[in-house]
């Protein structure tokens, strides 16, 4: 450990900065959480005070439970997010492995083509996507969303993962080949564990926008049985009146699963970094 890190003043300053940052980052979440347990009047009168005996109310949660099929929305969001992440990571990693490991004609061109999607927002193609979904009969299915989100996430995933995979030692892969491992085993057993931190990064980057997206659920899957949580919560936000109790309660419940996923991935992230797998 170096001197700067042992100096008590530096330690205090470092922790101070981190604590301040944590407070700032958590403050909106905190406000949402406390207000979701208050009456409508209390929300507007004293938005920052904690709920007390007088202002405490579960009305928001009750509305959410009564209105629509909240758990179905929840389940839809979960399925879409997890399935999209799975496909993004699987296909992204496979493409990245091919690009970084094999020499073939047009390798660089292929890499550039796959990375192009980072710069072009997929929403530009919404009309064409909708037409395609109508033609294939996928409108109002979760598959429509999963496919679109997978396409949306792949470019960045391929870009980041191929950069990391280039750093995996050639000798290790060659040792595997000499020991008779198939290319798939080399990919799944040797390379993937070594790029786990990058996989976690890609997962976290992709998870939040997918979970929060309103655009594609609204256009591709607005039916009652395929509504996602974000879309489902919109019923409480009207043009003239907004049921803030319900909105805040829905938001509070929507935060939870993302948090759980985040904790899982960040664990992986930290373990990947600290395991000292290479050399």
């Amino acid at each position: 450990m170096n001197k700067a890190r042992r100096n008590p003043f530096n330690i205090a300053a470092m922790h101070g900065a981190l604590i301040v940052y944590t407070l700032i980052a958590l403050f909106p979440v905190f406000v949402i959480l406390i207000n979701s347990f208050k009456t409508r009047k209390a929300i507007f009168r004293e938005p920052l005070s904690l709920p007390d005996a007088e202002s405490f109310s579960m009305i928001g949660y009750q509305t959410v439970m009564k209105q629509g099929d909240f758990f179905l929305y929840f389940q839809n969001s979960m399925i879409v997010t997890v399935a999209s992440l799975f496909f993004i990571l699987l296909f992204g990693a496979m493409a990245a492995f091919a690009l970084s490991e094999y020499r073939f004609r047009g390798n660089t061109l292929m890499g550039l083509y796959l990375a192009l999607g980072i710069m072009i927002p997929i929403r530009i193609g919404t009309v064409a996507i909708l037409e395609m979904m109508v033609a294939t009969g996928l409108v109002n299915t979760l598959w429509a969303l999963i496919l679109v989100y997978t396409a949306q996430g792949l470019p960045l995933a391929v870009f980041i993962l191929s950069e990391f995979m280039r750093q995996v030692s050639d000798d290790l892969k060659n040792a595997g080949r000499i020991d008779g491992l198939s290319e798939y085993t080399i990919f799944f057993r040797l390379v993937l564990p070594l790029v786990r931190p990058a996989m976690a990064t890609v997962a976290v980057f992709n998870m939040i926008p997918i979970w929060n997206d309103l655009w594609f659920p609204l256009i591709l899957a607005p039916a009652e049985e395929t509504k996602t949580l974000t879309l489902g919560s919109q019923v409480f936000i009207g043009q003239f009146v907004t049921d803030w109790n319900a909105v805040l309660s829905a938001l509070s419940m929507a935060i939870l699963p993302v948090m759980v996923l985040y904790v899982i991935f960040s664990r992986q992230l930290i373990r990947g970094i600290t395991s000292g797998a290479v050399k």
Partner: protein
Amino acid sequence: MTALKLTNVCKSFGQVEVLKNIDLTVEESEFVVFVGPSGCGKSTLLRVIAGLEDATSGTVEIDGETVNETPPAMRGIAMVFQSYALYPHLTVKGNMALGLKQAGHPKDEIERRIAEASRMLSLEPYLERRPAELSGGQRQRVAIGRAIVRNPKLFLFDEPLSNLDAALRMNTRVEIANLHRQLSASMIYVTHDQTEAMTLADKIAVLRDGRVEQVGSPMELYNNPANRFVAEFIGSPSMNLVPAELIGRSAGEFVGIRPEYARLGEAGDLKGTVVHVEKLGGDTNVLIDIGADKPFTARAFGQYEIEPGAQIGIDYDPAKCFSFGSDGARL
């Protein structure tokens, strides 16, 4: 029986020709060392032999069979890499067992081979550890163990000791020599290190720019180098090449004098100024400016007090000199 026979092997990466018409044979239980400057294609040649790269043309025969189309795992070879390349998620035992499991050997056979290899390399206390929990030397021994358990016809070593410190390198070098004696398997060994090359090899192949310059026993190469490149490359400190006009012979030619055969004294055909002295205890290297591009190195046995700036004469035995033409060929 020849363990390995390369005929006209060429390898190019795109436009770049890395290996050019390599012909080479390795006899059974022979220890062959590849030496050559960095980037001359030693590792590429080893990878072609292993099957990790396809030869652009030419044939690779291992144990009498052409293996150009055979995948690495089926060639009966084992390879030890410079960076160890151990599987980080497996224990030492798992690392050694993987190749055998993959080949479908029975469990007790695997156990027996691992026990034997770990006894040979004194790895028994570490069998349950992961590579991250081992020192560099132990990791390299595991890598060698992983090669041994495969019971290959041909071992390939790519600079296996260059990540180790000097003392450990010496020990492991002796260990590899012992292994070669015990297993009496054919081995190919790539190195930068003069001492490793000279002490381990039955036969040294000197490579330059993707070509084999000379193949021969260490003493053959030392006593009878085919050209200037080999002469300079084998021996440490390397041979002095004195422009022939300095000793009254035709210009353009060079006379090669090994540092250990130069005698320092008052008299001598060559005269110069001492520019630097390296005292190694057992012997003393004296660098002398004789008016050529590079200073002349003389190696004197024992300890001498010579000050830089002193005038000194160099005497040598003409019978132990080599003459090279301006194109580098031996005259």
